C-alpha cells in the first residue's frame, strides 16, 4: 500500500513538474507547482517525516506560492505580453544540457550501492526534531531568524523605492 502510494505521488509530482515548465500561462504553472509540493508532502509522510510534510504544505503551498500568485495577479499581464520560451537554438542546447546533467547524476547514483531499505525505525516526531533544532543546530536556527528579518527589510525597501 505504502509502496503503491509512493509511486502514485512520485508520478504525479514529476508530471506536474513537467507542466510547470511547459505551461505558457504563469498562473497554471503556479498551480501545478502547488500540486508538485503537495505530492512531495505526501512522500514525506510516507517516509515518516510528518513535521516536515506539514511545514512543506504550510510554507511552500501556503505562503511562498501564494506570494507568487499574488505577484502574478498584481502584474496582471495580458496573454500577448507574456514572454514564453527562449529561441529554438537555446532551447535545444538547454534541453541537451539538462539531460546530460540528469543523466550523469543518475549514473553517479546507480554506480554506487546504497541500501534500499533503512537500517532501522526513524521517529519523525516533532519533539526529537525540536531537540535537534534548539540544541545541536541552535546557531543556524538563530541565524535563519536574522536572515528572515533581513529579507523582510530588503523586500520592503525594494518594493517601496524606485531603483
Amino acid at each position: 500500500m505504502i509502496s503503491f502510494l509512493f509511486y502514485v505521488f512520485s508520478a504525479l509530482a514529476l508530471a506536474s513538474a513537467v507542466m510547470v515548465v511547459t505551461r505558457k500561462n504563469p498562473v497554471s504553472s503556479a498551480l501545478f507547482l502547488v500540486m508538485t509540493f503537495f505530492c512531495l508532502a505526501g512522500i514525506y509522510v510516507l517516509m515518516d517525516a510528518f513535521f516536515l510534510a506539514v511545514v512543506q504544505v504550510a510554507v511552500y503551498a501556503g505562503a511562498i506560492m501564494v506570494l507568487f500568485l499574488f505577484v502574478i495577479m498584481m502584474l496582471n499581464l495580458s496573454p500577448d505580453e507574456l514572454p514564453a520560451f527562449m529561441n529554438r537554438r537555446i532551447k535545444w542546447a538547454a534541453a541537451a544540457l539538462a539531460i546530460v546533467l540528469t543523466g550523469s547524476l543518475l549514473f553517479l547514483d546507480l554506480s554506487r550501492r546504497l541500501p534500499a531499505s533503512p537500517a532501522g525505525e526513524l521517529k519523525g516526531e516533532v519533539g526529537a526534531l525540536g531537540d535537534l533544532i534548539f540544541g545541536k543546530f541552535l546557531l543556524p536556527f538563530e541565524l535563519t531568524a536574522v536572515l528572515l528579518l533581513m529579507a523582510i527589510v530588503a523586500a520592503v525597501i525594494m518594493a517601496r523605492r524606485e531603483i
Partner: protein
Amino acid sequence: MNPALWITLGKILVVFALTLGTVAYMTLAERKVSAIIQWRKGPNRVGIWGLLQPIADGLKFVFKEDYVPQTANKALHALAPMLTMAPALMTFAVVPFGSTLPIFGMEVKMIVADLSIGILFIFAIASLGVYGLAVGGWSSNNKYSLLGGLRSSAQMISYEISMGLSVIPIIMMSGTLMLTGIVDWQGNHLWFVITQPLSFLLFVISSFAETNRLPFDLPEAEPELVGGFHTEYSSMKFASFFLGEYANMITASALIVTLFFGGYHLPFIENLAFFDNHGFMLGMLHVITFMAKTAVWLFIFIWVRWSLPRFRYDQLMGLGWKVLLPLSLVNILIYGIIILGFGLGGTS
C-alpha cells in the same frame, strides 16, 4: 479489509454528512437570527418555521443558469469554488468531537485522525483557503473580481500570522501539538479561555477575519466594492463559495471550542458517579457537549455580523499588522515568562 479502516471510513462519512447538513441549515439560521435581531419574522413560507427553506434554496441554485464570462479562463474558473470548499471540510479531520464511544464492544475514538501534529495540520490546511479566492478573482478576467481577489488574499495572509502566533502560548502551556492532548489538559486543569484571555481574544478576532465575516467581510462587500472575487460567479459555483464560507465558520467555531473552551469536556457533570459505569452515556454526553458549544459559537458569529458595521480596508490592514501582530508577540513573551518563572504548564 480490517475493521479499523471501516470505522475510519464510517467516521469520515458521518463527519462529512453532519458538516454539510449544518452548513445547509446555517443559511437558514443566519436569516432567522438576523430577522430576530431586526424585529422581523424571516423566512416562514416553506415548511413549518421555514425549515424547508435550505432545500428550496438548493433547488434554485441547481436550476439557475451557470454563466461563465467569455474571456474567463474556463478551467480555473471551475476549479476555484472547489479550492474554497475542500480545505474547509478537510480541517475537520483532526478536530476531536468527543472522547470515546463504545460501539459493538470497541472503544471508538471520536476523531477521524488523531495526528501528533494536529494544530500544525490545521494551520497548513487553513492557509490553502486563499487559493480559491485568488484563483476565482483572477480567472474571471474582470477588474472588479481581480481587485476583490487581491484584497481578500492580502487580508487572509495578514491575519493568518496573528492567528498562528496566538495559539503558541497554548502549545507552550499544554506541551503538545495534539488536539486531544490540548482538550485533555483543559479537562484536567482550567479552560484556556480563563488562563489565556488575550490569546483567546486574538484568536477570535483573527478567525473572524479568516472566515471573511463581518466586521471584516471586505472580500465580499456587496454594497460599496462591487462584490469581490465572486462577482462573475453564478449557480452552483457561487453556491460553493457561499457554502464554503459557512463551512469555514463551522470549523472556526469548532476550533475555538477545542482550543479555549475545553472541547468536549463539561466540568462537574462529567465527574458524577453515574457516568463511572455508563461509558456509552458519558461518550454521548461528550459529543453533545461539543455540539452545543459549537452551536453557541456559530450563534455568536451570526450575532456579530448583524450588530457591527464594516471596517475600512486600511483600518483592517492596520489592525492586523500594527495591533494584533505585536500583541500576539508580547503575549508569547508574557506566557513564556509565566511558564518559566512559576513552573506552570508543560507536560510535567
